[in-house]
């Protein structure tokens, strides 16, 4: 039997990383993710793993760059303003094709409380150059634990940074977490690691660059050879790594689309609506990039109407719009529908249900 712990979502990140054999954590304090960096400060050094508090989030992401260069699993965590500071580093990690994991515990724009206001920034690749990162959106402490492990696997598989998108509610909430140990399958050797020639089988030097394609290498004799490879990687991820959950979709006339804590709120509203005989379904994107566009489009073609529920002013709704290609009506429940118009306000199932009833009538 696996162990079960009653822990905060933020602590679940630490346990997930430990189980994934993460070897280095680099971070800078910011609410509401301080429990993550404090967990690593407590648990990593005594296990002989690297922990370092940086002097800024620009520092954290570059320390992650350094750790990733050595070929071991490394990560950082932050909240929204810190995430903004990390964008140049994210671009460089993507260009240099270095695997790593970033846990982003969103806060509401610049309040210290919860929200989902960084959706666009994480899914679009907030830095320069047009790179993409897989974004996993957990809805519970258990999924934070699971997805951190999945994130490390995907990062290694594609040699690309992976983001786990949390928020203040998920991070602070205490839930039971089962410390399970998933096996995702084999991964290729990290023969590219920068650790000194003595550590390479062939004894030859290794070179890593944030400007791939600039200087000719056997793999990338020119710039477009690299860009072509990177595009192939993005296309492969789009084809293979879309993850989502659906509830009662088959006969649904109205489809809710929601991620993170709001997906739980929406599921409650859905169940209440079904009790009233209303044909409501739910699509919950687990990967925000790549986005489950096809599933949404299929439903659009069958004549469903969509209700996007998100705790911001409307960001994911744009991806839903692209997915339906003008073939369905899309409505929105957003942060302006919180039960209180303040930091502590949240989107409640009642509000979602109200909107559902108004739309189905």
């Amino acid at each position, binding site marked *: 039997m696996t162990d079960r712990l009653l822990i905060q979502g933020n602590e679940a990140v630490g346990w997930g990383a430990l189980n994934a054999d993460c070897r280095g954590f680099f971070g800078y304090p910011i609410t509401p993710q301080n429990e993550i960096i404090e967990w690593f400060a407590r648990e990593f050094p005594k296990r002989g793993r*690297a922990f*370092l508090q940086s002097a800024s989030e620009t520092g954290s992401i570059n320390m992650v760059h350094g750790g990733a260069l050595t070929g071991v699993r490394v990560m950082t965590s932050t909240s929204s303003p810190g995430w903004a500071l990390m964008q140049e580093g994210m671009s460089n990690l993507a260009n*240099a094709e270095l695997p790593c994991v970033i846990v982003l515990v969103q806060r509401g724009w610049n309040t210290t409380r919860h929200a989902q206001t960084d959706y666009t920034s994480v899914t679009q690749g907030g830095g320069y150059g047009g790179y993409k990162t897989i974004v996993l959106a957990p809805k519970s402490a258990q999924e934070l634990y699971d997805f951190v492990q999945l994130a490390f696997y995907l990062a290694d598989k594609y040699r690309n940074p992976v983001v786990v998108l949390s928020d203040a509610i998920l991070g602070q909430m205490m839930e039971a977490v089962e410390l399970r140990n998933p096996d995702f399958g084999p991964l290729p050797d990290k023969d590219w690691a*920068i650790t000194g020639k003595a550590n390479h089988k062939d004894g030859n030097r290794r070179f890593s660059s944030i400007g791939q394609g600039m200087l000719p290498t056997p793999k990338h004799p020119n710039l477009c050879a690299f860009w072509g490879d990177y595009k192939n990687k993005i296309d492969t991820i789009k084809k293979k790594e879309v993850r989502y959950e659906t509830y009662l979709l088959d006969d649904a006339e109205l489809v809710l689309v929601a991620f993170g804590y709001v997906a739980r709120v929406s599921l409650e509203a859905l169940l209440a609506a079904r009790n009233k005989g209303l044909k409501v379904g739910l699509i919950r994107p687990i990967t925000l990039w790549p986005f489950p566009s096809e599933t949404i489009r299929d439903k659009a073609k069958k004549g469903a109407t969509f209700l996007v529920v998100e705790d911001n002013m409307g960001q994911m709704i744009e991806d839903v719009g692209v997915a339906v290609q003008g073939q369905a009506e899309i409505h929105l429940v957003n942060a302006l529908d919180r039960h209180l118009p303040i930091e502590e306000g949240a989107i409640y199932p009642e509000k979602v249900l109200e909107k559902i009833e108004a739309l189905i009538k």
Partner: protein
Amino acid sequence: MEKKWIAGTPRLWRDIPVIIPFCPGCQHGTAVKALCEVIDELGMEKNSVLVVGIGCYTMASILVDVDSAMIAHGRACDIASAMKRIVGKDTMVITWQGDGDALAIGCEPTIHAAARSEKITTFMINNGNYGTTGGQLAPTTPLGQVTTTTPFGRNQDQGYPIQAAEFIGSLKGVAYTARGAFTSPANYQKTKKYMKKALEKQRDGVGYSFVEILSTCPANWHMSPLDSLKRVEEEVIPLFPLGEFKDVDKIE
């Protein structure tokens, strides 16, 4: 491809498939040569990792026959710190940076790596301006010097140059700092000695080590190579004196 060997070329200097874009009279090449020799003479070729910032010297990342990474402008000390903490004491982690890279955009990582007593070594090439981007003001630009962003000469409005070797040497976590130059064969040898000592401090796990190397930028100083050397001797060295500023075998 067989390596073409040209007399005077260090063993660790690689043949590369592109033209090395250093201007005539620039001493970035001289600095890379010194680095190749120092690593070779210390027998550190197989266990060294070179972390190279962004500037005219970025080419060093493909010129030296050791594992190497070309990384973000200014962040070499963050990256090297994390690497060293993971690869451990037997691998030498070296940053190769410019004055703009290490002291302007990279001021935070440099100072904090020094303060944390990271067991890494920084070599910083000080040419008094931003060579790569066309010769703008750097944190090391002497008062009076004309740059493209101080077109009437640097004055007090733009503040005063940073003497990095002295300033970094004042931090407790630092094992060694020195400043060298390549204005004569004697200075070249002395600078190499400083570089070696800095690496030995890292090897022995004493603390952070830092060597500043005065260099020329004939292209942006609008001077001939010879006049540039003369300028280093007559104007730059008086402001940035050569020598060792910190040298301890133990930090307690």
